[in-house]
C-alpha cells in the first residue's frame, strides 16, 4: 500500500485527489485558493498600517495559514517516508529542449528527486548574484501577479473554472500568455547569460 502511494500517481488519480481537496475545503466552509495566503501573511506582519489593501481581518484566513503549514509538512512527508522510487519522468522532447538551454533533466537525479533543476535552485546558486536575481524575479512576478489577478492556479484554474467563472477563464488565458512568453521567448535569452 505504502509503495503504491509512494510511486508517482497517474494524472487521472491526481486530478481526482485535487477535486477531493477542493471538496473538503468547501465542506469546511472555505474556498480553495492558496495565493490569498500572501495577503494574509503581509496583513499579519502589519502591512495594513500603511496600505489599505492589507487592512482586513487576516484571522478570517487563519484556516488558510494553517492549511499552508500543513502543506509544507505534507511536502516533507511525501519526499521522505513516501519518497518516490524514481525521479520525475518527463517527455523526451522536453529533455532535448532543456538540454539545449543547458539544463539537466531528472534522469540524472537520484531516486525521489528531480522536482526542480539544480541550475536554478541549488544552494550554490544562492551565492551567485544572477541566480538569486532569477529567484527574486520569479517570486515577485508570482506575488504581484496572483494578487492582481485575484487568484492563482487553485483559485482561478481549479475553483474558478469549476464554478464556470468567466473572469477565471480570462485569468487562465493570462497564465498561459505569460507562461508561453517566458518559456519560448525569454528562456533562450535568460539561459544564454
Amino acid at each position, binding site marked *: 500500500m505504502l509503495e503504491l502511494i509512494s510511486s508517482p500517481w497517474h494524472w487521472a488519480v491526481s486530478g481526482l485527489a485535487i477535486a477531493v*481537496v477542493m471538496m473538503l475545503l468547501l465542506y469546511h466552509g472555505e474556498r480553495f485558493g492558496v495565493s490569498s495566503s500572501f495577503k494574509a501573511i503581509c496583513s499579519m506582519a502589519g502591512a495594513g498600517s500603511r496600505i489599505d489593501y492589507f487592512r482586513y481581518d487576516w484571522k478570517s484566513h487563519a484556516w488558510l495559514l494553517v492549511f499552508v503549514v*500543513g502543506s509544507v509538512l505534507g511536502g516533507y512527508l*511525501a519526499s521522505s517516508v513516501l519518497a*518516490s522510487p524514481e525521479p520525475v519522468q*518527463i517527455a523526451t522532447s522536453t529533455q532535448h529542449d532543456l538540454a539545449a538551454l543547458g539544463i539537466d533533466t531528472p534522469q540524472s537525479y537520484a531516486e525521489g528527486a528531480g522536482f526542480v533543476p539544480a541550475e536554478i535552485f541549488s544552494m550554490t546558486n544562492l551565492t551567485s548574484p544572477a541566480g538569486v536575481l532569477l529567484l527574486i524575479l520569479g*517570486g515577485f512576478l508570482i506575488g504581484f501577479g496572483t494578487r492582481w489577478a485575484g487568484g*492563482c492556479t487553485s483559485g482561478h484554474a481549479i475553483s474558478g473554472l469549476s464554478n464556470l467563472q468567466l473572469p477565471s477563464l480570462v485569468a487562465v488565458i493570462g497564465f498561459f500568455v*505569460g507562461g508561453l512568453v517566458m518559456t519560448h521567448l525569454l528562456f533562450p535569452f535568460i539561459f544564454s547569460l
Partner: protein
Amino acid sequence: MKLIRFFLVGILFGIVMTKSEAISWFRIQEMFRFQSFHMYGIIGVACLLGIGIHVMIKRTTAKDLFGNVIELSPKPKTYKASLLGGTTFGLGWALTGACPGPLYVLLGHGYLSIGVVILSALVGAICYGALRKVLPH
C-alpha cells in the same frame, strides 16, 4: 479544534501535489511546451469533477459541516486585472515552475532556495497592494 482539520487537509494537499508531480518545474515546462498531456490531464480531471461538485452543491443547496448553506460566490468581474495579473503570474510560474501552492510544498521538500521565492512573492504582494489604485482592473 476546527483549525486542525485544515492542517490535515493541508498535509493531504502537500502529498497530492508531490505525487501528482504538479510541483515539478519540469512538468510545468512540459506543459508550456505542449509536450505532455500530464498537467492538462490533472487540471482537466480536477475541473470536470469540480464542475460536477459545484452543480451538485447548487442543486441540493448543500450545507457544510457547520450547517451553513455553501455559498458559491462569483469571482469579481475585473477582466483587465484577470488578464494582466494572470499574464504577470504566468511569467513567474514558468520561470520558477511553481504556483503558490507548490511553493509551500517544495519548501517542505527541503529546497531552501524556495524560501527566497516565497519572500519575494510576499514583497510582490505588498507592491501590488501599494500600487493597486493606479493599476487597471
